[in-house]
């Protein structure tokens, strides 16, 4: 029913997909797996008309289609359910289902027809916990997902794409989702199911397509593979690139958590030592960034012991000597319209420690900002140079612990090596470093120890130089056979 052939796509000259083929038949659940950033979501967004593809063809029922707008895809029978729902919280269920195409009778919106049609679809899905008139904001996340599915059904979708549908669900809600997926399947609807969680892939899917680094690895019948096979297919690649030599000595403990927890994290036991780089691995939504923010005091722990202090606010965290290089440097790390100097002095000024303008130049040279122009607005710098300014910002307060969240995302190769060197240098100087990264080679190359998170808990700790497969197995919660 659906055939995608040779799909290729580049963003700003960076190739994210090339030569991907995908074929789907009615009534099948087709899982798409791959590491973070492998290109799964981009492929699905092309199918949904959000992005246009540069190469290849898409055929539905043998007819070649080309989607310029999400509505085109909708009309062709493709519905996509994002992780972030496209619903209006202040409107009712049926108003959301029929948004933009409300039924009309004698020139007026026919609310009765809307409600009846919605109620019928809800009943068909076996959903009795809420009715068509409930406001969407009063529904749980799982119920909102049902609304999205009802919307897809009311559009007569024949291909439903689900992007990480269980990411936001609680354990017991996952069962309900399985039931919904099977109902769709019974109706002859093809479900494209994107997930990191291998258990779901094996529970639900008929076929699996593995994508790696924007390329198709293979498509296989799910029953013909084991989870070990899948993990190997997802990560199997050569380790290459240069990383600075590891530290030789580990110093005193700079920060320690025992039984740390909040609404996203549970039972966190973690020790960060001077001179050591601890890598944090985990899938999206596993609580990696949440861990960094809890240690820093931005979204604090509500349970557990922490030394030297358990920060309840960012200021307490900074006072205790903790710095956070955030994942999103543009919105969380820098004041983009201000100068390099003002950004470098952001933290010292905020903490009321007399800012020495004279020291800025030296600092910028130390972080290897080239050229070290203090007056330039930060927004004109490259990603790598911006990251160096963020580092300089923290070095002004001489932190004891530095937390890096995806420090080299969107950074060119040269700057990446410079940042790696700098991290190692800081560690040698006695700073305890924690680094979150989705890029396994980086984690393996840089870390002295790798802590793997899964669903807000520590799933295990691996020594330096562990294999990618070992990390992925822990992170994905491989089904033991």
């Amino acid at each position, binding site marked *: 029913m659906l055939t995608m052939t040779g799909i290729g796509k580049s963003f700003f000259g960076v190739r994210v997909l090339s030569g991907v083929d995908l074929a789907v038949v009615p009534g099948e659940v087709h899982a798409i797996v791959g590491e973070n950033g492998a290109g799964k979501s981009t492929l699905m967004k092309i199918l949904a008309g959000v992005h246009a593809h540069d190469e290849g063809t898409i055929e539905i029922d043998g007819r070649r289609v080309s989607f310029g707008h999400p509505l085109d895809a909708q009309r062709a029978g493709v519905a996509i359910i994002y992780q972030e729902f496209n619903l209006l919280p202040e409107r009712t269920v049926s108003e959301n289902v029929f948004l933009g195409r409300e039924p009309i009778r004698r020139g007026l*919106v026919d609310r009765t027809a809307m409600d009846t049609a919605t109620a019928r679809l809800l009943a068909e899905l076996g959903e009795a916990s809420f009715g068509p008139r409930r406001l969407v904001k009063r529904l749980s996340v799982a119920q909102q997902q049902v609304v999205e599915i009802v919307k897809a059904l009311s559009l007569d979708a024949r291909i439903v794409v689900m992007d990480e549908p269980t990411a936001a669900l609680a354990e017991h809600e996952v069962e309900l989702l399985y039931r919904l997926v099977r109902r769709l399947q019974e109706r002859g609807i093809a479900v494209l199911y994107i997930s990191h969680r291998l258990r779901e892939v094996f529970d639900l899917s008929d076929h699996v397509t593995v994508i790696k680094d924007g390329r198709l690895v293979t498509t296989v019948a799910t029953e013909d593979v084991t989870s070990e096979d899948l993990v190997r297919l997802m990560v199997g690649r050569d380790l290459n690139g240069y990383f600075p030599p590891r530290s030789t000595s580990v110093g005193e403990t700079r920060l320690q958590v025992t039984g740390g927890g909040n609404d996203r994290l549970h039972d966190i036991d973690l020790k960060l030592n001077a001179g050591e780089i601890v890598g944090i691995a985990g899938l999206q939504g596993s609580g990696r960034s949440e861990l960094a923010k809890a240690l820093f005091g931005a979204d604090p722990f509500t349970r557990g012991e922490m030394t030297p202090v358990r920060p309840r606010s960012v200021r307490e965290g900074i006072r205790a000597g903790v710095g956070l290089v955030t994942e999103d440097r543009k919105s969380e790390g820098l004041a983009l319209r201000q100068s390099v100097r003002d950004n470098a002095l952001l933290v010292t000024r905020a903490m009321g420690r007399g800012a020495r303008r004279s020291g800025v130049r030296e600092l910028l040279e130390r972080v290897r900002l080239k050229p070290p122009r203090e007056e330039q607005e930060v927004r004109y710098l490259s990603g790598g140079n911006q990251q160096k300014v963020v580092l300089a910002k923290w070095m002004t307060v001489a932190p004891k612990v530095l937390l890096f969240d995806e420090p080299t995302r969107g950074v060119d190769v040269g700057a990446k090596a410079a940042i790696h060197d700098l991290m190692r240098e800081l560690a040698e100087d006695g700073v305890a470093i924690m680094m979150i990264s989705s890029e396994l080679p980086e984690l393996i190359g840089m870390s002295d120890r790798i802590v793997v998170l899964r669903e807000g808990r520590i799933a295990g700790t691996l020594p330096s130089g562990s294999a990618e497969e070992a990390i992925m197995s822990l992170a994905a919660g491989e089904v033991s056979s």
Partner: protein
Amino acid sequence: MSQNVLADSRARFAALVNPTSVVFLALAAVILVGWALVAVDGGQFLTMETVVGVQQRSAALGIVAVGQTLAILAGSLDLSVAYLISLASLVAAVTMAGQDSNIVLAVGAVMGVSALVGLVNGLMISKLRVHAFIATLGVSLIIKGILGDLYDGPAGRVPESFQHLGYDRLGPVPVSALLWAAVALVAWFLLRRTKYGYRVYAVGGDVEVARLSGIRTDRVIIITHVLCSLCAGIAGLLLASRLGAGAPTVGTDGGYDLESIAAVVLGGAALAGGRGGVAGTVGGVLLLAVLDSVFNQLEVNSFFKDVVRGVVIVVAVAVYARRTGLVGRRRT
């Protein structure tokens, strides 16, 4: 099944504490407290005179606020209504020039000018992507400049027959209040029963969701601003009929720009759009008018009056924010 019943009763409770109910409960409370205070003071609160007074005072603001409700629901707002009211009053009085025969022409002219202003506002906001605050502020200044250049005081004259609109009443109900009720009913009907209304809520709720659902969001914003300006135009006609002439300061003296926004927000609408309704706004306008009336009867210092009004508005919005905070937290 029992889960269902529980959920339903919870929904019913939620309906009771929704902002529209809150504003009418507050209105009832203010009437009661006002009645008690005035009685202690030795006066009588609910006389024919005060009831009529409240209605007359609120009619013009009420009409503007209904238009403002549409703009705010669509995620926009309109600061140009005050100067547009002045402009409309002048266009009306000057065109009528005291002649009965010119009334129809004058009303048509006012509607035309208002629609044009709304069109300009809407086009700037949707097509040029100028923020509504700046776009309508700019249009205000333009109208202000034109008025300042052409008039330095009241001008034109409306015929006696047109003054009935401002002063007559049917029993206890002034004609102006009926006009307000009619405008409010039309807006309520548009919002609740037509495709246009559903689109306003969608655009104000989340532009991206609306766009991906195939709604032509620009068109919705433009129509909304035209309607909002038409309401201001009607208010201008009403004020011209009261004054017997047009005046370049009638809109700004009444503070109709910020006051109408305050009334809408007091009525429980989210300033960001997508939540609220005409009923809440009517409640908000009445609440402000009754407060006014109580203070007048008690002969309270007018500065103190403003302090209390300010407190009421801020407290109301804080209360609504808590409510939505309790149930609206998702998407972390």
